[in-house]
C-alpha cells in the first residue's frame, strides 16, 4: 500500500482528521511562542547544525572517544551493525541478567529495530512506560508521532483501551483519571523491573555519558530501580562536549512541544554500585546514509517532531499513513535509505512548501531532500504506473506544439459539454476529488495574443 491509500483510510473520518490537523497546528503554535522568546534562536539552530555537521565529519573519532570514556566509567559498550544484531545483543543481556521482564522508556531506535516483537517472541515481557507508548502498546499499534505517540487517538479510545486492559470504569475518559490509572499500573511494573531499556537523546564523547530527556520521569524511575540499564542509541546521537548540551537542550523541547525544557534531562555515565549499565551503538543503515552527500544531513536529526507538527500533509494524513518508524517529513527522507522500494511513495507525501525545513532546529534541508529522493525514485523506475504514464504523456504533448494546441482546444470545448460526473470522476481525475476545475476560458492565450498583435 502507498501513502495515499493509507492516508485515505485516515481521512475517511473528516471530523477526526480536522481534530488531528488542528491539534498538531496548536503544538506548532506553542513552538513558535517558545521560539520567539529566545532572541538568539536562529543562532542556536546554526550552532546545532554546525556541531552536528562537525561531529559527522569526525564520527569515527568521536565514537572511539565515547566508547573509551564510557568503558572507563564502568559501562559495557556493544556495537550492532543492524537491527537483528541489536536485538540479539539486548536479548543476550536480558538472559544473562536472568530476567523475564523489562521496563522500557521511549526509544525510537528500538521501534526501528522492532525489538518488542522480537523479545516477546523469545518469552520476554516488555512494558513500555511512556504513557503514550503504553497506550499504543496495549492497542497493538505503532506510535504515530515521534514525541506524541498516541496523537491519533481520542480520549474515548484511550478510555476504552484502559477499560479493557487496566480495568478502569467503562466510559471513563477524563485524561486526569486515565493518567492516574496508568501511573498506578506502571508503578507496579517499575517496582519489579529487573532490566530497564532507554533510548538516548545525546551521547557526549568527552565524558561517555548518555542524556535522556523525558517529561514523565519514566526513564529515571525505570533505570534507577532496575539492576541492569541498557541504553540503545543510533550512532548519530553523538555530540563532542558537555557544553554542546547547552545548545541542544535549549532547542529540543522548545521545538518539540513549546516547553522551555523537558521536565527531566538526565545524564547517565556510571551505573550505581552493584548495578550494570550497557550501551548499544547501532548502525542499521546510518553509515550508508553518511555516504550519500545529498542525504547525510538527515543524520543531524534530534527527533523533536517539529517537522511533523508543521507539515500540512502529516497533519491531515496521520502518522500511520507513513508506515515507517519515523513518520512525517523527516521519516520520508530517512525511509528510502532503509528500503526505497517499500517507501517509494513517502517523498511524494509533501507539498514541498518547505515549512519542515523552516522549523527544523538543526537546519536539515528536508524539503530539498524530498525533492532529490523523488528524482532518484523516478530514475530507479519506482514511480506508480499511472504517474509514470502520465508524465510520459505530458512530456510528449509538451514537446509537440501542434498536439498541445489541439489538446487545449479539445479540453476547452470538452469541459463545456461533458457531464460534471465524468470530468470530475475520481478514477480519471484524482485532482478533482475535493476541488472544482476552473471555468474553461473562451480562447487560449495564443489566440488572445494573436489578436493583440493585429491591433
Amino acid at each position, binding site marked *: 500500500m502507498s501513502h495515499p491509500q493509507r492516508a485515505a483510510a485516515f481521512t475517511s473520518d473528516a471530523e477526526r482528521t480536522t481534530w488531528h490537523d488542528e491539534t498538531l497546528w496548536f*503544538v506548532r503554535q506553542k513552538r513558535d511562542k517558545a521560539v520567539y522568546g529566545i532572541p538568539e534562536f536562529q543562532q*542556536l539552530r546554526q550552532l546545532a547544525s554546525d556541531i552536528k555537521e562537525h561531529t559527522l565529519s569526525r564520527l569515527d573519532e568521536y565514537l572511539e572517544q565515547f566508547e573509551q570514556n564510557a568503558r572507563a566509567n564502568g559501562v559495557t559498550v556493544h556495537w550492532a551493525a543492524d537491527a537483528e544484531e541489536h536485538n540479539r545483543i539486548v536479548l543476550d543481556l536480558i538472559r544473562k541478567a536472568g530476567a523475564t521482564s523489562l521496563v522500557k522508556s521511549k526509544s525510537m531506535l528500538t521501534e526501528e529495530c522492532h525489538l518488542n516483537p522480537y523479545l516477546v517472541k523469545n518469552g520476554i515481557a516488555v512494558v513500555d512506560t511512556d504513557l503514550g507508548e503504553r*497506550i499504543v502498546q496495549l492497542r497493538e499499534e505503532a506510535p504515530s508521532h515521534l514525541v506524541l505517540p498516541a496523537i491519533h487517538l481520542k480520549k474515548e479510545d*484511550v478510555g476504552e483501551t484502559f477499560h479493557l486492559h487496566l480495568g478502569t470504569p467503562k466510559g471513563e475518559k477524563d485524561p486526569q483519571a486515565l493518567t492516574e490509572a496508568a501511573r498506578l499500573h506502571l508503578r507496579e511494573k517499575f517496582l519489579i523491573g529487573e532490566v530497564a531499556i532507554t533510548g538516548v537523546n545525546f551521547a557526549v564523547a568527552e565524558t561517555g555519558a548518555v542524556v535522556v530527556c523525558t517529561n514523565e520521569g519514566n526513564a529515571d524511575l525505570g533505570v534507577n530501580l532496575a539492576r541492569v540499564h541498557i541504553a540503545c542509541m543510533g550512532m548519530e546521537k553523538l555530540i563532542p562536549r558537555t557544553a554542546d548540551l547547552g545548545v541542544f537542550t535549549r532547542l529540543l523541547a522548545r521545538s518539540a512541544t513549546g516547553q522551555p525544557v523537558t521536565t527531566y534531562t538526565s545524564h547517565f555515565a556510571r551505573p550505581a554500585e552493584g548495578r550494570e549499565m550497557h550501551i548499544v551503538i547501532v548502525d542499521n543503515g546510518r553509515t550508508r546514509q553518511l555516504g550519500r552527500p545529498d542525504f547525510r544531513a538527515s543524520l543531524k536529526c534530534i527527533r523533536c517532531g517539529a517537522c511533523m507538527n508543521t507539515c500540512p500533509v502529516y497533519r491531515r494524513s496521520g502518522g500511520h499513513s507513513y508506515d515507517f518508524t519515523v513518520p512525517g517529513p523527516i521519516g520520508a527522507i530517512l525511509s528510502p535509505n532503509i528500503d526505497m522500494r517499500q517507501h517509494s511513495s513517502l517523498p511524494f507525501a509533501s507539498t514541498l512548501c518547505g515549512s519542515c525545513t523552516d522549523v527544523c532546529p538543526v537546519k536539515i534541508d528536508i524539503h530539498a531532500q524530498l525533492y532529490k529522493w523523488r528524482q532518484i525514485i523516478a530514475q530507479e523506475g519506482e514511480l506508480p504506473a499511472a504517474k509514470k504514464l502520465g508524465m510520459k504523456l505530458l512530456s510528449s504533448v509538451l514537446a509537440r506544439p501542434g498536439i498541445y494546441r489541439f489538446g487545449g482546444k479539445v479540453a476547452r470545448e470538452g469541459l463545456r459539454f461533458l457531464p460534471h460526473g465524468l470530468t470530475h470522476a475520481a478514477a480519471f481525475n484524482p485532482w478533482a476529488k475535493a476541488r472544482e476545475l476552473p471555468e474553461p476560458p473562451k480562447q487560449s492565450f495564443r489566440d488572445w495574443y494573436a489578436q493583440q498583435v493585429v491591433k
Partner: protein
Amino acid sequence: MSSRESILAAVRRNRPEPTPLPPVADFGGEATVEQFTHWLHFIGGQVIHIDPAQPLEEVVRHLYPEAVRVASDLLPATVPVDAHTPTAVLEAVDVAVLRGELGVAENGAVWVPEANMLHRALPMIAQHLALVLDHASIVATMHQAYAAVQHTGHYGVFIAGPSKTADIEQSLVIGAHGARSLVVLLR
C-alpha cells in the same frame, strides 16, 4: 571483522570533509529570581521564599501537613534513605526534600547531582519533591548551567517542574510517573 571494526571502517570511508567545531556558546541573559520564578510557575512548579533562619522542618511541615514519610538529609527525616534503601521503602516516601545545586532562569530547571539524591530513584519515586535552592545559584541559561556544572558526574538530572504528560489528547496532566508536585524552596 567485528561489527565495531566494520562500522568504524564504514564511517571512515563515508564521512564528509572535515568542518570546524564551533566554540562553546554563551548568549548572556537574565539570571534573576523573577525569571526563574516565572518559568517554574509556567511549567507547573512553585517557588516559595524561605527565611534561612527558619528551621526547614517547620517549613516542610507547614507545606505538607499530611506527609508522614519525609526523606531528606537537610532536616530530621522520618524515613532514612541511602543508596541501599529497598524499593518498597522508597516507594512509600511522601515527600523528598533535597538540595538543588543550581537553578536555570530561562526554564525553571534545577540541577540535582547524584550526591544530593540519597538514592538515585528518590527524586522520581517520592510522591512530592521539594528542592532547596540558594538564590545566588541561579544562572541565566543552559549554557551557563553546563559551564557551572562542568562535569555531569556519574548521574545527575536537571529537574524542571513536576512530572507531567499530555499524551491523552494533548491535555496536560501533572503527576505522570515522577513527583506529583515540585516546590523550590528559595533561600
